[in-house]
């Protein structure tokens, strides 16, 4: 996502240290790392394991369990399209698959220019405005193919 900086172990250590006073700090730390660096790389795992006093295997298990913690940098923008039932009731499945086909992308992949990652999401709580989507942190209701194309174009030219 836009604003992410390259991985920096020193900065990561500061972020980890700032959260160690919390009860069960793992998720808050992972969120903070992901926010800062746009992803949580493999090199973070031993560093986190040491700080939290758990094994690397356990830490790896935590990082990889949650869909939202990314192992690699994402596109500059992330477009999440809802695939859940309410959006499907308004034709979201076909809309999304057609859109992905136009971009020649699969779910979870990024355009070759690194501008846009397209992800499936299972409900944004915008079920009275299906189909719904979210571009970075901006929620979008009643989207259609044309709107998705417009968003993709804006994201890729920005």
């Amino acid at each position, binding site marked *: 996502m836009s604003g992410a900086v390259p991985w920096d172990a020193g900065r990561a250590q500061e972020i980890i240290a700032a959260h160690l006073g919390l009860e069960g700090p793992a998720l808050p730390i992972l969120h903070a790392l992901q926010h800062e660096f746009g992803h949580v790389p493999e090199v973070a795992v031993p560093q986190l394991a040491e700080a939290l006093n758990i094994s690397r295997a356990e830490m790896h298990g935590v990082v990889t369990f949650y869909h939202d913690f990314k192992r690699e940098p994402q596109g500059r923008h992330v477009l999440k399209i809802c695939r859940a039932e309410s959006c499907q009731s308004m034709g979201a499945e076909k809309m999304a698959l057609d859109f992905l086909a136009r971009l020649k992308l699969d779910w979870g992949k990024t355009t070759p220019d690194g501008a846009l990652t397209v992800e499936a999401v299972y409900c944004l709580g915008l079920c009275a*405005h299906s189909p719904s989507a979210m571009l970075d942190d901006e929620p979008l209701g009643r989207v259609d193919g044309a709107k998705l194309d417009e968003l993709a174009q804006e994201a890729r030219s920005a």
Partner: protein
Amino acid sequence: MTKMYIPRDMAALAMGAKKVVAAVQKEAAARGLDVEIVRNGSRGMLWLEPLVEVETPAGRVGYGNVTAADVPALFDAGFLSGGEHKSSIGLVEQHPYFARQQRVTFQRCGRIDPVSYAEYTANGGYKGLDRAFSIGPAATIAEIAASGLRGRGGAGFPTGVKWKTVADCPGDKRYVVVNADEGDSGTFADRMIMEGDPLSLIEGMTICGFAVGSDKGYVYLRAEYPIAAQIFAEALVAARAAGALGKQVRGSDFSFDIELRMGAGAYVCGEETSLLESLEGKRGIVRAKPPLPAHVGLFGKPTVVNNVLSMATAPMILADGGAAYYAYGMDRSRGTIPLQIAGNVKHGGLFEAPFGLTLNEIVNDIGGGARSGRPVRAVQVGGPLGAYLPVSLFETRFDYEAYTKVNSLIGHGGLVVFDDTVDMSWMARFAMEFCAIESCGKCTPCRIGSIRGVETIDKIRAGENVAANIDLLKDLC
């Protein structure tokens, strides 16, 4: 000075509320008019969002589906004094959709500034906690039990029993955890409370903390709700600043504070034991029960895990008494249920009513039928783990036990409407696919079974040994 309300609710934002706010500010400045814009929660008439409300001597007048482009014309029409415009819906609280409801949990949602402690208390807020303080913990739990309140997260477990179990546990550390991992499609009531009346959740948690003897609460909120996270965090700051959270809550000798924690896109964390694992910083894997979280919960301590709505209803129950809440509803389903009407439906939104409405009333009468204008085929009630009810079951009353009788469950009260173009076998396949993606992997029937479910439904869809495969699928479920 004119007071105006434009929601900061995520659904309103998704329909362009931010641009409307900017356009109103710009137009008001250009015309030299003094307008105060309150960013309220949603009234729940979601199909009208963004719903702009203007305060007039007669009451709040609404303008529905306002776009930024409409704004100059609205000023021309004199909307600051409630003037007529094509988007007018008249007095908001007299709109039939709103007037038909009995709002208890959502009594303030959409009416007040969600992060204003002063507005919250001016509208009945903190009467519940003050009463709890005056009657003591045991009598507080007795009020919750007398209300008949059952968990609004899906399972419908009596809230009073849960609180009493935790209060009766030995030891001096207990936790209050709110499950705001509202992951099922067709649900948005938790989100609306956290965005529209977050202080009711904070007060409810504080009442619970006082009742069970806990000084620490956590709200576990799903990451898909960034706006709710922001507004709830602002409400926590407002509550602390007013002395309603922290040491010596509202001048008492009771201390309590709340921390907001974000999930990370794991559906299974909506299940209470995996939620607790996740809060502890582990993989969100379900725990075997017993022990119940009430006995051995967060960090091994006795823990109340309640849904947002159950907790946000506690202030009203304490303020007005358990009997007042019990008076709503039917049989063993007491009180009100905030229905969430969604999917292919004309009037999608939140409708709070006592238990007992039929699906026909909810979908066709209140919801206005399918948005596509085609006949309704089915309604999914209770999310992916609930059921699809066909039109032939539309006379079923909305009630925990009545739904159990038709082999279904009301769950959280979320309803997703489908018209007759829906491919039901595809939706069944999707349910299995979703479970396969979101399985935490601990138990074989779910980890392997949902994959086999997808394969079996694919065979049925392809016409392969249909009868035998349907039997196999039934056995699998």
